């Protein structure tokens, strides 16, 4: 049976992990490769790096991180942040990324997603959507708008229609972040996640708001998500991925059981 996926996400700036990852017993918690190895050992199903490097000169630092990660960790790796050209994608895939996540560039030029899917295959094109509720969110009919630049720029696009359009353009997966819930630890935006998941036939990754294990459970059940992305609950070792998987498994969510470390082969 296909299992639901748990995907830890690391913010990487200039080749270093930011947004305080606090691992005890980790020699260098700032090195994305070391953190990736920890998550590998804990049984993460995939990994995601979000590159937030601001300066143009340092944009290549992520390539080095991807190369080093691909030498140590043998599970799918998605890289997002600042991807604007087919050449950006080619270089990341060649370095060892399996998927790339496209956000702002998709909004600015939707045909870019189509070109990328045609060239590299839908399986490696993830479209990231940052959505905010714009209707009265307590009402019967809810609407969400797509935002870019970390929620600062409104686009006028309806998130559900946009997700469908990106699927039609060849996206293989949707990474859906609720700007309302992100950072709150109050749980995922379940109506948003369910609305998008119902509207598309491709997998949806829920993101933004995870604070407890029941939040992950709700994302899969009420939110109908295929995967959950989470950062701080794992980075601060509030819960390990193993604990999350045991909990979800006990609640009847299909999970891949813990795995032997790669070093044992």
């Amino acid at each position, binding site marked *: 049976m*296909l299992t639901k996926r748990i995907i830890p996400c690391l913010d990487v700036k200039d080749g270093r992990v930011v947004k305080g990852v606090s691992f005890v017993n980790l020699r260098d918690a700032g090195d994305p490769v070391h953190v990736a190895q920890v998550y590998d050992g804990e049984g993460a199903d995939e990994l995601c790096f979000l590159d937030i490097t601001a300066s143009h000169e340092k944009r290549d630092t992520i390539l080095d991180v991807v190369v080093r990660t691909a030498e140590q960790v043998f599970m799918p790796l998605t890289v997002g942040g600042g991807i604007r050209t087919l050449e950006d994608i080619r270089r990341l895939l060649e370095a060892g990324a399996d998927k790339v996540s496209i956000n702002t560039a998709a909004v600015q030029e939707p045909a870019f997603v189509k070109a990328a899917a045609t060239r590299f*295959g839908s399986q490696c094109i993830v479209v990231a959507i940052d959505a905010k509720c714009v209707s009265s969110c307590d009402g019967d009919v809810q609407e969400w708008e797509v935002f870019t630049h970390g929620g600062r720029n409104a686009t006028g696009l309806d998130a559900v229609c946009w997700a469908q359009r990106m699927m039609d353009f060849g996206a293989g997966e949707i990474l859906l972040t609720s700007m309302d819930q992100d950072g709150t630890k109050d749980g995922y935006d379940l109506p948003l996640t369910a609305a998008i998941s119902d509207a598309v036939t491709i997998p949806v990754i829920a993101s933004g708001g995870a604070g407890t294990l029941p939040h992950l459970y709700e994302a899969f059940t009420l939110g109908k998500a295929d995967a959950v992305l989470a950062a701080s609950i794992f980075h601060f070792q509030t819960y390990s991925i193993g604990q999350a998987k045991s909990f979800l498994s006990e609640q009847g969510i299909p999970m891949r059981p813990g795995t032997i470390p790669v070093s044992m082969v």
Partner: protein
Amino acid sequence: MIAILDYGMGNLRSVQKGFERIGHEAVVTRDPAAIDRASHVVLPGVGAFGDCMANVTRFGLVDPIHRAIQAGKPFLGICVGFQLLFTESEEFGSHKGLGLLPGKVKAIPLPKDVAASYKIPHMGWNTIHIEKPAPPLQNIDPESYVYFVHSYYVEPAAQELVSTRTDYGVSFASSVWKDNIFATQFHPEKSQAVGLQVLKNFGEWQ
């Protein structure tokens, strides 16, 4: 020496790093002489079937692939590299494959009703049920989880080709084995310890 065929598609570095990690030397190449010298040959692949087949042909790899298989070298196809071994595919029109194994590549059927809903592509970790334990599956638990990402599946013309099956909308061949050919719909290079064990077994296969 393991030759990983480079035809401009696919996550070649991941496959190479996987072999290196478990101590098998592997080169990424499209040089026919290097392929002829190799002891083992790997055909990886991601992307659309038609594009992949066009590139295999364009880079002159059809003959070296046939030579490697006729010479009895252990041969591993991965994902689209697995599908390419068969007769034809219905992905974006009809495309001829390498025709080394009889069978067709078909689309995973859409869910029939909302209650039994599932997403396409089939993306993530799913179990394999071992039907015929091929040598590269040695020491692999019968219900192991491996990583898949695909929207099309192979329907072999002969059931005896099927090495493992996986259920997703249909029960499909997640790997096949015939003589010196072993090929997987899943990605061993992305399947953590289980996948590395498959690569290790393949590298030791004589």
